[in-house]
């Protein structure tokens, strides 16, 4: 019998993006990879799209994604697999002159 269990993860939303998520600081989504989690989030809250993705539909350079305390860049990137209960954080890195 194939399993029908779903993977529910919590995405943490940085303060300025909460205006796009009805003020919520966390959003639960069903997703088994980081990419699916972010795409599901953007489908639900389309105003997030321009903040997270550039014109080539890639994550903006300053947008870092953590699963728990791990930066996915040092793992499988947006293809990182998720388990139920994982916390996915959208974390900006900041630079300027």
């Amino acid at each position, binding site marked *: 019998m194939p399993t029908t269990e779903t993977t529910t993860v919590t995405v943490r939303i940085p303060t300025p993006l909460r205006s796009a998520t009805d003020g919520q600081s966390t959003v639960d989504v069903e997703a088994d990879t980081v990419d699916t989690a972010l795409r599901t989030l953007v489908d639900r809250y389309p105003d997030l799209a*321009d903040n997270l993705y550039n014109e080539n539909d890639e994550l903006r350079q300053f947008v870092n994604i*953590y699963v728990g305390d791990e930066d996915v860049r040092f793992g499988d990137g947006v293809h990182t697999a998720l388990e139920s209960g994982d916390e996915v954080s959208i974390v900006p890195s900041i*630079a300027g002159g």
Partner: protein
Amino acid sequence: METTNSILNAIRQHGADAYPEEGCGFLLGTVTGKGTNRVTALHQATNRRAENRERRYELTADDYRRADAAAQEQDLDVVGIYHSHPDHPARPSETDLAEATFPGYTYVIVSVHDGTPDAVTAWTLALNRSEFRREDIVLPDPELM
């Protein structure tokens, strides 16, 4: 943004201490019902640029996470970023615009001339990311903050 003179003075002091390099850190606080960032605490950080720190600054994702953790301990959020402009006006540079993150953060800039802090200004990125727009700095009664 809303804040206090003591916060603004702490930003000026960090700019002076970091001179001739750029000093930087995070603005902690809350968002008011009107969508204004109310800054009630700072999280000083280290300029992570490996070189040219007189003209550039950088804060890593781990720096952000540390600031976010510090904010949560105080029931606050990260609502913005500050940095200094050594011997340069307190307005966003082309690099600041090119590297800007999310609209909604308040970006505070302090100019420091010959080691002495000068103007402090606040800015927010336009939704279409085309420019920084000036934010008023409002100083309500600290007792009400």
